[in-house]
């Protein structure tokens, strides 16, 4: 039924606006902190006002339900006049003397960039030349890009600062995660383990931001887990780099250009075709065969799609979030026979529109493409195009409530439901979970219970 509407011409007049209303995007330091949090022994240090560390910490706490220790150089009026060198120098010294980290990952802010602090020079002077602690200088002003570009900039800064070619290949594959959940990372690791492929995750929050409570209530000074700095150094010797989110993949391009490590920038592994491609890429880079267990998981995904296709065929779904996850979910929804009506991302990326257009051509869908915009516009287009289901982070709740449709939560941040960070929506297994969530949301929302008896 819903698919019939797609033949109608779509006319959504979108007036350009100056004001942004309900942005599903955050600023660069937020993403940069997440990149740093995935490195073992790395303390993020925000060079800016105190709000610039406090707000991201708050977001991490409410999404992951974990504490996140982030340092800040506490810039104030005097820095606006004299520059922030004194504060940054003192901050580096204090973080080193109290936490003795392997790395300090610096994120700049609106303020430090506008006053023009030379972070590389200041941080070089702040530590002794023979100091083993390394400082990662990422440029992440909030007036450029979004949380996702912040992640990308910090990840590239990590690799640029640390990676060294040794000559001997390490027979590993680099995986740049982008902003995904601990559950997602565990699933990708599981796939690589089943395929017997050694790996380096750039970076890995699966333990640092999903920590256990251990007997006696002991908490280490810096969280266990995360990618070891020597693995980031070694990333220059890998067989290749796969970026799960292309928008966070500039470190892969850097490794390719600088060290000839092949970069694979492909769609995120969600759904059948995109996960197939991911598995094929791993196989291509590593020479690994595709084992039966992977094929069985793929078969279970197809089985799960077959099981629910009567419920889901033609279901209108509107999706917002980070570009690579959204476009991969749009394809998966199309594969499952659903009707993706709106695909929206606040972070602009060159692959987003071509991805959606290709899906529209292949599946004869008419998914509207919204890029670099806000949830106010998303809502307007949802009203025009229709949606029986919304997919997005917690900020989609009001849109879903106003349209009286369920919201299936994915992305960052999700703070009004528990446990979302624990589960994967990536890979064959994650896709099964995502489809089940979508189906159960439809079945749980005013679905005639009589029709659920078979």
């Amino acid at each position, binding site marked *: 039924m819903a698919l019939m509407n797609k033949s109608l011409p779509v006319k959504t007049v979108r007036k350009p606006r*100056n004001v942004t209303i309900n*942005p599903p995007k955050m600023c660069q330091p937020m993403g940069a902190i997440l990149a740093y949090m995935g490195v073992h022994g790395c303390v993020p240090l925000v060079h800016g006002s*105190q709000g610039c560390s406090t707000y991201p910490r708050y977001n991490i706490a409410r999404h992951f339900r974990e504490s996140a220790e982030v340092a800040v150089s506490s810039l104030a009026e005097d820095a606006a006049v004299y520059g922030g060198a004194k504060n940054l120098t003192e901050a580096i010294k204090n973080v080193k003397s109290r936490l003795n980290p392997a790395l300090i990952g610096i994120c700049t802010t609106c303020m430090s960039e506008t006053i023009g602090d030379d972070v590389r020079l200041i941080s070089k002077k702040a530590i002794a030349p023979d100091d083993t602690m390394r400082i990662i200088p990422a440029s992440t002003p909030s007036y450029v890009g979004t949380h996702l570009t912040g992640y990308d900039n910090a990840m590239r800064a990590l690799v640029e600062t640390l990676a060294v070619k040794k000559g001997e290949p390490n027979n590993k594959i680099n995986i740049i995660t982008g902003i995904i959940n601990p559950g997602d990372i565990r699933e990708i690791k599981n796939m690589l383990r089943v395929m017997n492929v050694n790996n380096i995750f750039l970076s890995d929050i699966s333990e640092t931001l999903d920590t256990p409570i251990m007997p006696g209530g002991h908490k280490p000074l810096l969280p266990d887990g995360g990618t070891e700095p020597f693995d980031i150094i070694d990333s220059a010797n890998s067989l290749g780099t796969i970026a799960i989110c292309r928008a966070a993949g500039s470190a892969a391009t850097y490794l390719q250009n600088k060290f000839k490590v092949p970069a694979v920038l492909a769609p995120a592994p969600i759904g059948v075709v995109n996960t197939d491609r991911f598995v094929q890429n791993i196989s291509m880079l590593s020479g690994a065969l595709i084992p039966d267990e992977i094929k069985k998981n793929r078969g279970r995904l197809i089985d799960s799609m077959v099981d629910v296709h009567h419920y889901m065929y033609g279901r209108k779904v509107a999706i917002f979030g980070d570009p690579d996850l959204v476009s991969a979910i749009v394809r998966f929804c199309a594969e499952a026979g659903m009707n993706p009506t709106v695909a929206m991302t606040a972070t602009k990326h060159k692959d987003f529109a071509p991805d959606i257009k290709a899906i529209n051509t292949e599946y004869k869908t008419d998914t509207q493409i919204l890029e670099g915009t806000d949830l106010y516009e998303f809502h307007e287009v949802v009203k025009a195009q229709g949606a029986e289901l919304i997919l997005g982070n917690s900020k989609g709740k009001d849109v879903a409530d106003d349209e009286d449709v369920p919201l299936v939560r994915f992305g960052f941040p999700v703070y009004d439901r528990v446990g979302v960070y624990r589960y994967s929506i990536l890979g064959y297994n994650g896709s099964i979970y995502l489809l089940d969530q979508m189906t159960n949301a439809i079945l749980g929302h005013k679905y005639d219970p009589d029709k659920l008896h078979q």
Partner: protein
Amino acid sequence: MTTILPECDIPIPQRQPHIICHDPENILLPMCNVQTVPGDMTERGCTFAGCRGVVGGPVKDAIQLVHGPIGCAYYTWGTRRNLSDTKLHRKYCFSTDLTEESVIYGGAKKLLNSIIESHELFPEGKAVFVYSTCVVGLIGDDTEAICKQAQEKIGIPVIPFHCEGFRGVSQSLGHHIANRTLFEKVVGTEEPQETTPYDMCIVGEFNIDGDAWIVKPLFERMGVRVLSVFTGNASYSDIPPMHRAKLNIVQCQRSSTYIAKMIQDKYGVPYINVSLFGMKQTAEALRDVGKFFRLEENAEKVIAEELALYQSGIYHYRKKLEGKKCFIYQGAPRAWHWMGPMRELGIETILTATTFGHKDDYEKIMEKANPGHICIDNPNALEIEEYLVKLKPDFFIGGLKEKYLTYKLGIPFINGHSYEEGPYAGFEGFVNFAKDIDVAVNSPVWKFINQPLEAK
């Protein structure tokens, strides 16, 4: 010596004057309201947070427009649980979303257009509050002139708040800026439709999780007319007539005494400090107000009615909580607001800390503290952890950023900023508070912390 240098602070001895062990023979207050030690893992936020997040943000029918890059607007979108009976201020987030181009060429035009567009799209907004972030202060946009121009164009008040994040040492300056701006630009611009001899404002009550909905009716039942609540569940139109109150009572004495003082100085309206937490303090506040308005009997009647309803609940929880020890770490006033109520539950507060307390906050803490009480100004994450491990309180009342650290240490926690299942104010709210403490402390989940898994 009553100052302490915890182990984690040995490399930064400048923290020592901020940490006090209370000695009634030799009362010393922690050094406070000064710049944070850079890199000390502070829990502090910025001036923007105090202005937008705390004082200005709760005004429910103002378009809350953040002039700056996107982050600052996003992070204050519906976060603090300052509830209202309308949707505008928590459901919508407005930002000029400044980009590099604006940083180079200025954001004036974008701001002007954003104000006009917001008004066109949300005509239900009765005013536009424009908050400046760091970068706006640095590039020098003349927000005063732009807001004036916009106001003439759209015909509703457009109020600029100069609350750039880098100003001051903490959120505290942001409170002051919000108070001063609202006093100078809004209070007194309109007269109330009518006045009565019993007009009062509740100042510094932000309706966290519905606190104002509990405390406001208490005074109304006494026969007091609450002219406005500053700013919990407030309409913009509640603020202009504040100068015609006969009395202001101040609940949050850190963020909002400023406006009560300014109204007193300019319009001669007296104010009194109150604590609307706990049975005794709330009763005392009602009595003080009753005395002022000569409504003593009414106050006693309301107190008696409330105690009849809720005192048994407090006795119930006291039995389960007596003898417990707690830490309280709040912005500032709730640290001392809650020390007395804890004693009503048989709980002793062995450590208090505040993010942005001033001298008067610490005086109020020391008045209530027992010898040996530890008091920390602007604590950082490492100090909090060290004291949680060393002193092992039975529970910790802090904010979300400290919550999960505390859990990992196996210590029960209550979110005192936005509450767990509030409201916590007034008589009824104190029962909710006691219940949340009981839930935290007496849940069976904690017993597994000390049950390691061993092979049989």
